[in-house]
């Protein structure tokens, strides 16, 4: 340990700062700009300022800023984990980095097949971004995943990927695939095609948002209960909501940690299943073979 150079340690500290400083900045921003809330108020993200854009103005909101925070933190984490990689006598963080890469690799290979092995980094990105975004609510910040626009963007990207892989056998084959079992089911197939990204986005967003809403509701209810039951206590003791201890923490573990990570996993699994399921692999390889034969003939 002592053999590590000063530079190495300095870079380490820089990376750790990359993980910690954005978080502190975000919390500070939240504390400074949060309007005093009275009672129950369930709203979307706060708008810091609005940039005029064509079609629709772009409001820069809490969820945008928090997404950026999560991304900077993840970048710092990646750099920290892969700092000072060695082939032997490896450190704990390298073990962790290798474990992450290998387990995501095997997850992708198991559920998508060898052909999609390159998807590993993309799935890891989804898992990390979604998971850490949901976990951000542990620090009191608004989780970006409770904004439909954020999750919607990911779902649109997944939709693009699904369509790209379905188009691999040519646009004609893609159009044909809608009348798959029987042609008159084509409208239903089109609806289900469009429903895929919508359902993915709403599932993720709804789960995280509902967790936040329930937490707020229960927190407010416990505050009221505390005021009525323990209001007789003298002085400032009566103002402390003692009943808010305990139950919200347990709920937070369920809604913020368990549900958030579960939704990240579900989103990643669905991505893998839709992309690999929509890709007509046998047909694609057949076409490829035929094309190669044609080329050989020429």
């Amino acid at each position, binding site marked *: 340990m002592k053999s590590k150079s000063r530079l190495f340690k300095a870079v380490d500290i820089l990376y750790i700062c990359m993980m910690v400083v954005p978080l502190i900045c975000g919390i500070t921003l939240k504390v400074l700009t949060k309007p005093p809330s009275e009672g129950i108020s369930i709203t*979307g993200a706060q708008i810091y300022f609005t940039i005029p854009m064509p079609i629709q103005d772009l409001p820069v909101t809490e969820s945008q800023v928090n997404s950026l925070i999560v991304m900077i933190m*993840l970048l710092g984490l990646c750099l920290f984990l892969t700092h000072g990689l060695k082939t032997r006598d490896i450190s704990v963080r390298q073990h962790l980095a290798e474990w*992450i890469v290998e387990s995501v690799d095997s997850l992708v290979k198991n559920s998508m097949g060898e052909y999609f092995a390159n998807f590993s980094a993309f799935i890891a990105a989804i898992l990390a971004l979604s998971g850490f975004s949901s976990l951000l609510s542990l620090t009191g910040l608004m989780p970006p995943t409770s904004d439909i626009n954020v999750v919607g963007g990911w779902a649109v990207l997944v939709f693009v990927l699904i369509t790209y892989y379905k188009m691999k056998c040519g646009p004609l084959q893609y159009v044909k695939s809608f009348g798959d079992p029987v042609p008159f089911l084509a409208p239903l197939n089109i609806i289900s095609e469009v429903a895929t990204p919508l359902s993915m986005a709403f599932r993720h967003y709804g789960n995280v948002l509902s967790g936040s809403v329930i937490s707020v509701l229960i927190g407010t209810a416990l505050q009221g209960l505390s005021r009525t039951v323990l209001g007789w206590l003298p002085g400032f003791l009566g103002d402390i909501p003692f009943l808010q201890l305990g139950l919200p923490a347990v709920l937070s573990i369920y809604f913020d940690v368990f549900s958030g990570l579960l939704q990240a996993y579900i989103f990643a699994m669905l991505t893998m299943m839709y992309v690999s399921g929509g890709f007509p692999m046998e047909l694609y390889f057949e076409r490829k073979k035929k094309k190669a034969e044609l080329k050989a003939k020429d």
Partner: protein
Amino acid sequence: MQTLDVISVNLWQILISLGNLCLLFFMMKKFLYKPVKNVLAKRQAELEEHYVAAENAEAEAKASRDAWEEKLAGAQSEADSILKKATDNATYRGEQIVAGAKEQADSIIRIAKSEAELEKKKAEDGIKREIVEISGALTEKMLGREIKAEDHKALIDAFIEDIGDGND
């Protein structure tokens, strides 16, 4: 400060979020996957190298062990042959010695026998002579006169010869 509605769809926000995910994908690829895969590949190569080295070392060790075993087997046979030679030599020498001893003993016995014979002969001669003298004296006394020793000597000799022969 304003807030958004709980559900408010904004095209640009969706695009930004899409871009964010793409960006994170490239970040993951460049800063997590590439270095880790690199180091894994490097380790694999090193392992291969070690395996090859270990196999070489094992083959070498086996070869030297075989050589030593061969040498050992050679030494064993050599020792065996030396021992056999020595045993043969010893047996031969022993036999020779025994034979020599036997011969010596035989010769000793032979000499002793001949000496005994000689002694016997000498004794016989001595007895003969004494008998002659005694018989001469006896005859002298019996006859009362002196007889010529030479006359009767031949007679007595013949007589004694007869006795000796009868004794044998």
